[in-house]
Structures are given as C-alpha cells and as structure tokens.
C-alpha cells in the first residue's frame, strides 16, 4: 500500500503542472480578449475555401465517394 505515497506524489505533481499552465496563460493575456479569436477562427476556414476552392471540393468528393 506504500505505493499510495508515489501515486499521491504523481497526482499532486500533475495537478500542479496544470495549475502552473493556467497561471502562465493568464499572465500572457490569453483570457483578456475572449471574443476576437472566436471570430478569427471562422475567417481562416473561409479563406481556404476562397484560395484553394478546388482542393477542398475534391477532398469533399473523396469523402462522399468513400461513403458510397
């Protein structure tokens, strides 16, 4: 049962790692603007369609083909 010392040590260590990651992301300002990235994310999708419209269409076709 002494394994519990090790297990606890590991779990606390993992928890602290995540906690430190949280603090770091707050400090970097990741939560300062929570709106713009959500809009920006959608642009890039659209842009790919515009620039490489043929590509995305062909890949769609492949998917539909494979379904058949």
């Amino acid at each position, binding site marked *: *049962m002494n394994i519990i010392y090790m297990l*606890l040590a590991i779990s606390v260590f993992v928890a602290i790692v995540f*906690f430190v990651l949280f603090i770091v992301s707050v400090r970097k300002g990741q939560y300062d*603007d929570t709106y713009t990235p959500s809009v920006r994310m959608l642009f890039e999708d659209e842009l790919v369609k*515009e620039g490489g419209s043929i590509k995305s269409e062909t890949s769609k076709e492949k998917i539909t083909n494979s379904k058949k």
Partner: protein
Amino acid sequence: MVNCFHCGDACLDVEIKHDEKSFCCHGCKTVYDILHDNDLSYYYDLEKNPGISPKEIAGKYDFLDNETIVEKLLEFNDGTTQIVSFLIPSIHCSSCIWILENLNKLNPSVKSSQVNFPEKTVRITFSAEENSLKNLVILLSRIGYEPYISLDDSDKKEKNINRSLIYKLGIAGFAFGNIMFLSFPEYFEHSEFWLDQFKPFFRWLMFAFSLPVVFYSGSGYFVSAYKGLRSKILNIDVPIALGIAVLFIRSTIDIVFNLGTGFFDSLSGLVFFLLLGKFFQQKTYSYLSFERDYKSYFPIAVTRLFKNSEGKTVEEQAEVYTVKKGDRLLIRNNEIIPVDAILIKGNALIDYSFVTGEAEPISKQSGDKLFAGGKQQAGILEVEVLKPVAQSYLTQLWSNDVFSKDKTGVFENITDNISKRFTVVLLSIAFISTIFWLMVDPSKAFNVFTSVLIVACPCAIALAAPFTLGNVLRIFGREKLYLKEASVIEQMAKLDTVVFDKTGTLTTNQKNLITYEGVALSAEEKQLLTSTLRASSHPLSRSLYNILDKNDIQTLDDFEEEVGKGITATFNHNSIKVGSYEFVGFSDETNSEFKNRTTVHISANRVYKGCYIFNSEYRKGVAQIFKQLGTDKEVIVLSGDNEGERERLEALLPKGTKLHFNQKPDDKLNFIKNLQQNGKQVLMIGDGLNDAGALKQSNVGFVVSENTNVFSPACDGILDASQFKKIGDYLNFSKKGVQIIKWAFLLSLFYNLVGLSFAVTGHLKPVVAAILMPLSSISIVVFTTIATQYIGKKLRMDINKQS
C-alpha cells in the same frame, strides 16, 4: 429607397452607380474600389453593408511628421520594425476584424495586425523602412477606420492589469479541490487499518495545501481587517479574517497533537467562495472608460506658426504640451482649440456645447478671447496663445481636490453596516459560551471558543452583496446602463436629489426643432432658400436645409457668404438674404424677443419675411421622468446655457422644478457640494466636460451618451441615450436589489444560528462544518441569483409595457 452597398445608409441626395452597385457618397465608393482592386471583396461577403464612410482628413495627420510625437505613439521601435496600437471606434462587426487583420494585402509593409474586438483596438506591426506611421494612419482613414488619437496617448501609461484576484481565486480553488479529496476518507471512517496508517501523511499534505490559501489568497482579508480596525471600523473583513485565522490555528493544533483532522476543507472552501463573490462582482466593459478627463478629448498636436530666419512664416506641427504663451497657432475647420487664446485672424464660429453647455455655436471677432475646448466650425483661424494647455480655463477644473480623491471607500456599504453589530454579537457569544464551559468542563472550553468563531464566520453574509450586486450590474448592462462598479448600485438606492444638465442631457445633440414665424414664403422663395442653404456650410444652414423640401435645386447666379453674419444670393433677379437680424437689414430695432434664442432671419427682395427659430429638442419623456422622480426626490436642472430656454423648460417640467442657468463648470461642482453639505444624496446626470467636476463630486454621476464610442467624461455610469426615460425605473430597481441583500442577510443569519447551536454545545465536527459552510454559501448564491433575475424580468416587462 436604395441603400449604400458599402455603409448601408440610405442614398438620400445622390446615388452613385458604380460596378452595378449603389453608393451614398464618393467616400464609400472609393473604399469599395480600394478593397475590390486588392481582392478584398470578401469583406462584403462576411456581413451586409459593413463599411464606414470615410471622413475628410486632408492635413489632419500632418502632425505625424513630427518625430517626437510619433515616438510617443509607438509601442515598440527598433528602427526597422515598429509596433503601434490604435483605438478605432468604428470597429463594429466581423468584417471589420477581417479587413484590419488583412491590412498587409493593402500595404505589404504591414507585417501583422491583430484586432481586439471588445476593446476596439488594433495592434499593427510594420516595417519602418517601407512605411511611416502617418501613411499607415492615412491608409486606415481612407478605408473608413480612422484611429482616435488624443492627448491622452501622449503620456504613455504602462498597461497594468491587475490579475492578482484571478491568481488568488485559482490557488484557492486548486487547494480546495485537493484538500476535499484528501479529507474525504476521514468523513466516513473513524478507524480503519490503512486509514490510520496514512492519516498523518494526508493531514500534513492538507496543511501544505492550506498554506498558500491562508497566506496568499486570504491575505487581502487580513490587510483589510487591519486597515478597518486602525480606522476604528468593524468591517465585514474583521470577522472573516478572525474566522480564517482561527480555522488555521485550530486545525494546525489539531493535527500537531493528533486531536482530529482539522478544518482545512472548510478553510479553503471559505476563501474560495469569498473570492468567487469578489470576482463575480466585477464586470468590466472593456470598450468603455470611466476614468477619462480632458486629455482624451484634446488633440495631441497643433499647427504652430513661427517666423524663420528669413522672416517668412512657417508652419510646424508641435506637441500641445510644448505650446507656450505668445505662440501663434493655426486652427483648421473642425479642430479643437487646445488652449486659451486670442483670435487674430479668421472667422471664428465656435461650438462650445461640450465644454460650457451653450447649445449653439458662437461667432467671435478678431481680438476676442477663445477658451480651450471649443471646436471651430467655419474655416481656418489664427490665434495667439494666452495660457498653455494645463492652465487653461477648462483644464483648471481638474486641479480641484475632488479629482485626486478616490470615491470608492468613502461611502459605508451595507455589508459593513451589518457587520458592526454582527461582530459584537459574535464575540459576546464566543466569550459567554467559553466562560460557561470553563465552569462546567474546562477541557472543552478552547474547543467551543474556536468552534463558535469558525462556524459563525460570516461567509454567507459576505457573499450576499457581491452576488446580488453582480447580478444587478449585469441586468443594468443588458438594459444599457453601464456601471463602473457594483458599489454604485448601493449608492443609487439611497439617492434623494437628482440634478440634470441641460444641453446634451435633456436635449438631444442630433436634431433641432425648427419653427417658422412670419409671412409665409412663396414656392419660388422657398426654392431659392433651399438652393442657397445648400451651398452654405454653416451648421445652422445645414440643419435648416435638412428639414426643407429639396425640389428643383437651382444653380445660383450669385452667392456670397459672410461668415458669422449670413448669406446673400440671387437667382433670376430674385434676391434673398439669410442670416442674423442685423444682417438681413433691420439693425435699428434691437429685437429683445429674439435675444438669447437661435434664429435665422430671411428677407426676399429686400422685404423682411420672417425667421426660423431653432429650439433645442428635448428628449422624449423628459416631462414624465421629472414627474416620476419628483414624487420622492428633489429634481434640479443645472445649465451652462443662457436663460433663453427658461420659459419652454418651465412649461415642460412639473411646477416647482428648480432651474439654474449660466452655471460655469466649477459652479456646478460647488452647487453639488452645497447640496451634499445639507445632507443630500445627489445623482448628477450630465454629458460634457463642463459636468466633469459635478459628476465627480456627486454621490453618483451618470453620463448620457448617444454613442458609447465617443468621448464621455469620468463618471460612475454611462447611460445609453435611448434608455434615458427609464432612469426612474433603474433607480427603483437598485432599491429592490438592496432589499434582496437584506433578505439574504436574514437567510444567512439563520444558517449561523444552526451552526452556533452545534458550536456552543461542543458538537462541531469537521464534517458538519464542511457541510454547513458550502451549503449556506451556495444557497445564498442561488437565492440572490433567482431573486435578482426575477426582479430583472419584471423590470424588462415594465419597460416593454411602457414602450
């Protein structure tokens, strides 16, 4: 009606057909062309009519040639790469984000640009070798995204965001979760082989987790309790700090002497919930600022004239701060005069509405004194500086003591009020029960003493106000009353006097109510009048032109505008004169009826016809608001304008409303101060820089704003002009919010009684505390949230019924 493809405005006078699309003006068409030529028409796919019509900017940004100014604006500069952040008020949709983040397609020197939508800022990295800041600003302005650059940008403040509350909350939550897991086994088993084996290890681990909670997360409560005690106030943080300290000491003693598990779970839970309340109470509107002063309104630079060695007059762009007494300045159309000055050359027509509250632009002759803050409306001026920017008539207001004081903490809040009595009662119960147990069973005395302090720790009381006010704050935000902080709501509930500014607050800035008095004009004369007004750029001509029928616009044979006086025009042997009474030609009779009122007189073929009277238009529902507020409050109007509107106001407002005119900015401040010295709780509602002192001095200061993008002075809350008539409902709503807090206090006192009955009898086990404390906290949160949402819904329904 056709709408502009670019900006969505209706194409009124002109409709420009281009590329099978309609545009309302050449500006919009140009932006469309720029975007179209650069393969950026995706802009129009994202949102319908996303654009903003660009404004005339010729010469406006010449000051960006001055390197010291540029240096002040830049965030980073290593000679090759420069980074700059702009506030762009016109950012409003996803198309805006897209175009601003694709600036490099318009200009390759831009390396990257990132928009912060809630703050309406864009941060641009560009190559200094290929481009200058000035060109960048011009590029942005040309596509309709003109940056807002003011004197405020010149003293660069380090962006210091205080995130310590998030860290504290994070640590408390982290420790709370872990300690809960570690203390769980002992809740259910008292003695079991493996449990006994690991008990000490678990306990010391909990102790370790609780250390940062007490000494970092909870540190604020100790500091605040200490400060409170020093100024002899028993604020709510005193019993909280006492509770935290007792919890920690008792738990440590318990595990050192192996008496029990301690209360580490309750301890961390308590701190976590308290911080959660604090966090919830904050709601920031990142695009609004409640701290602005004249600096965000004044320009950063001004055109200075000086004679060079050859005796020629040269223009230079100078920082406003470097302008000295005796300097000659050039003020262009629509520029703000940043200093007190004497007019040397040019026709001055100055709009002081924002600064003094005078409704109409005032024309000045050379030799007249011009005050800082006025906006020139007709052509170019040359002025000589009398006083530099920091000493001008207007900016002097900011040297008043009120501006250096911090309003928060001045007023006692409802929680501290109850905490005074609570703490006294709590301590007496603790001591009485300890004395009782010392006589009956001394071994239990310490146990009972600490238990009382632990279980009575007013966590629930401390949570009642933050969660109620936090909810109310959000409801107000939804109803377009944006408050600076939650404590304003408590102040709102106490108000008994309401003071209104007139210009811009009771009146609208946009429209004028224009009436005609005199002989009716014939159709021909009307035609001529419209054509004449069309050619004039005077603000009164513009607003008069907008209300007239625009049929058969003719090209005039002759047109002459004398700035500050009026217009003479002829067409087909008919002549017309439009302007002041004197100008129209009857200067002998000084007509007292028109004094103090804004009028435009008309004569046709040398015969006096009549005049258009410009009345400021009052906001809808002004009379009802005064009636509603008047039932239980004193209502006063405080105007910087002259008495010209007195009669109309008296007719409009309920009898007995006090009206004060010709109030200078510091008169307003002192007026409010006087009211307060007579024990009044004052709400000031204003809009301009002239109200800044009064807004700051009052218990609660609100700014009415037509457009939350534009400048508003420092205040406690910004009210969207469309919601103006609901101000009475909002004040009542804040009263209901405070009522809810009082109910929540009762509820939490009930929990405290239950807990105390365990504690004084010496039966408080860690598991009881661990259940009771979160239970009371959570039920307070649930109660306040449901109650505020309920009254919020009722407010919404009342408002809908009215409209």
